[in-house]
């Protein structure tokens, strides 16, 4: 009976080709898109616009050489061209002659790039001065790029991939489970089932098993594309990965069931779920970290379920770590899942 319910869920799901395609393709497209944009392993190359002086002095030549030595991309433009580019907002940092020396203008909208560029430009200037005066060049501290788990080969795509796996779970729980349940209740599909002797748990379990297998299929496709396109490999054990994914799926599906108890209509549910979805996505480190956020917000985020889930997932997937150090984080996820489950049981209605 359960098998039949499960098989029918899959059969009907497979008929909705558009929905199925996008469920499977959207995370893949995100991975391919962002992964390609930020393909360069050392991050995007920094560039500076150099406003040409009337006549190049030896100082200018030495500075240009030093900038190139530091791997900065230098674009030499006339004053008019440089000003035009600056007005369009495309320039992050612009180096221009100022009396005897130089001045560096930084774009206040692009401070992440501009700040890093400013450091390099100043370093280049020190190098150029030393070279001109024949003094020994200032020494540089060697730099080493590596992930939190001491792997060197991780790029942005492999940071992104576990985030996308997490995103899949959350959207599966909130939208495919929660939304679908509200619409079933609204349209009376549950009522029609309620007058049959089918045990309700069979229907719900069939649904849950279907979503679970969809999630697995999504994950497999994403991992495969990650491997083929970017050579990303799971660095940890697949068993740990499965364990974390199962815990996460359970937690976020319970979220969906719980939230569906609070909305009368699909429209109402859309509002409620976005209220949960966006803070969860924005604040939980799927796309960026929260180092610059106020401390209270960082604490708040740490006890939300997605952040510890992703940290554990990345530790295993990217760094080949074990789950041992993530007991607290996984307990937080499990606690949220349990709380959501209890709330779901309390609030769930068939009609």
């Amino acid at each position, binding site marked *: 009976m359960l098998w*039949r319910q499960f098989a*029918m869920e899959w059969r009907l799901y497979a008929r909705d080709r558009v929905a199925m395609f996008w469920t499977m393709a959207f995370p893949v497209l995100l991975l391919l898109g962002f992964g390609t944009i930020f393909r360069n392993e050392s991050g995007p190359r920094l560039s500076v616009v150099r406003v040409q002086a009337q006549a190049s002095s030896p100082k200018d030549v030495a500075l240009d050489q030093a900038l190139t030595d530091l791997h900065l991309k230098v674009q030499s433009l006339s004053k008019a061209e440089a000003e035009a580019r600056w007005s369009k907002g495309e320039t992050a940092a612009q180096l221009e002659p100022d009396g005897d020396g130089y001045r560096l203008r930084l774009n206040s909208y692009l401070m992440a790039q501009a700040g890093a560029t400013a450091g390099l430009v100043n370093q280049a200037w020190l190098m150029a001065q030393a070279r001109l005066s024949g003094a020994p060049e200032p020494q540089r501290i060697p730099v080493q790029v590596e992930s939190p788990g001491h792997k060197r080969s991780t790029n942005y795509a492999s940071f992104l991939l576990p985030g996308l796996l997490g995103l899949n779970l959350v959207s599966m729980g909130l939208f495919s489970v929660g939304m679908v349940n509200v619409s079933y209740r609204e*349209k009376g599909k549950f*009522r*029609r089932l*309620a007058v*049959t*002797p*089918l045990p309700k748990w069979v229907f719900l379990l069939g649904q849950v098993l279907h979503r679970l297998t969809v999630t697995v299929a999504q994950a497999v496709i994403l991992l495969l594309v990650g491997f083929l396109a970017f050579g990303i490999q799971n660095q940890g054990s697949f068993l740990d990965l499965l364990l974390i994914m199962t815990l996460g799926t359970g937690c976020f599906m319970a979220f969906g069931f719980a939230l569906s108890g609070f909305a009368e209509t699909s429209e109402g549910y859309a509002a409620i779920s976005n209220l949960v979805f966006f803070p969860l996505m924005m604040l939980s480190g799927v796309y960026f970290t929260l180092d610059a956020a106020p401390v209270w917000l960082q604490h708040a985020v740490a006890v939300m379920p997605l952040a510890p889930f992703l940290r554990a997932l990345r530790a295993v997937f990217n760094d080949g770590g074990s789950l041992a150090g993530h007991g607290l984080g996984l307990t937080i996820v499990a606690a949220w899942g349990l709380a959501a489950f209890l709330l779901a049981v309390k609030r769930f209605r068939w*009609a």
Partner: protein
Amino acid sequence: MLTPALRIRGLRKTFPKVLAVAGVDLEVARGEVFGLLGPNGAGKTTTLEIIEGLTTADSGEIEILGLTWAKQGQEIRSRIGVQLQSTSLFNKITPREALDLYGSYYPKRRSTAELLDLVQLQEKADSYHITLSGGQQQRLALALALVNDPELVFLDEPTTGLDPQARRSLWDVVRRMKGEGRTIVLTTHYMDEAEALCDRLAIMDHGKVIATGTPASLIADLAIPSVVELTFDGAAPDPAAFAAALGQAVERRTDLWEIPTPDPKALLPRLLESAEAAAVPFQQVHIRRATLEDVFLHRTGRSLRE
């Protein structure tokens, strides 16, 4: 002796601010087609949903095929068939799949082919639900109510929203169901449907049963077997003066007069004479048999369609 198909005593249900069912008693015999007739909001659907186990009553007793919800819920579910007011299925399920799926929920079931045949959906058996017409969807809903070969079938407004032809074809299915020996309880706000299909009726208004009986006996109890209708071009004039002259009650509807009478033959010459004398600008005179509509009107002072 067999217990009645359905026995209800003192059923009450209050929703926040609305008294939906205000003490309903009903008894339906086996093999009967029983109708709950009443305007929208009379409490028919709530009554039916309480019987079907979808809503719990505040008080009252219900016995279904001699069983009670408290003790034998699963057995009741497997022996009754239900068509809800609107049956929502997946857009892309076919009638054949839906019948197979719902059939799999029951210990005893009828074959899908037989059901498709009964509701004449063989040609649409493999089309997606969303592509079926309203009448075809309703017929599928009827077939779904029969998948478990139920002894007792509940149909909630089975023909609402259907065109006349689709209604007739649905009536045929209901008659075939009765021919198979099933007990059928249906709600409707169409008096012609109640007259055409039901062996017995309960007329409901404001959460109460205001009359019970066969359609014929309900009409006969009115003691006005006929109604003479005068139709006008546009709105009907005020009949007060004319009624006085005629010496007979004349009721005004929006575009016609109605004159209930036990003896239309005797009334007609007098009526035409008076109309001539008073220069009443009527267009047609029409004599009709009294209907359930008149019964409802007589008991509540309101029309069913209002």
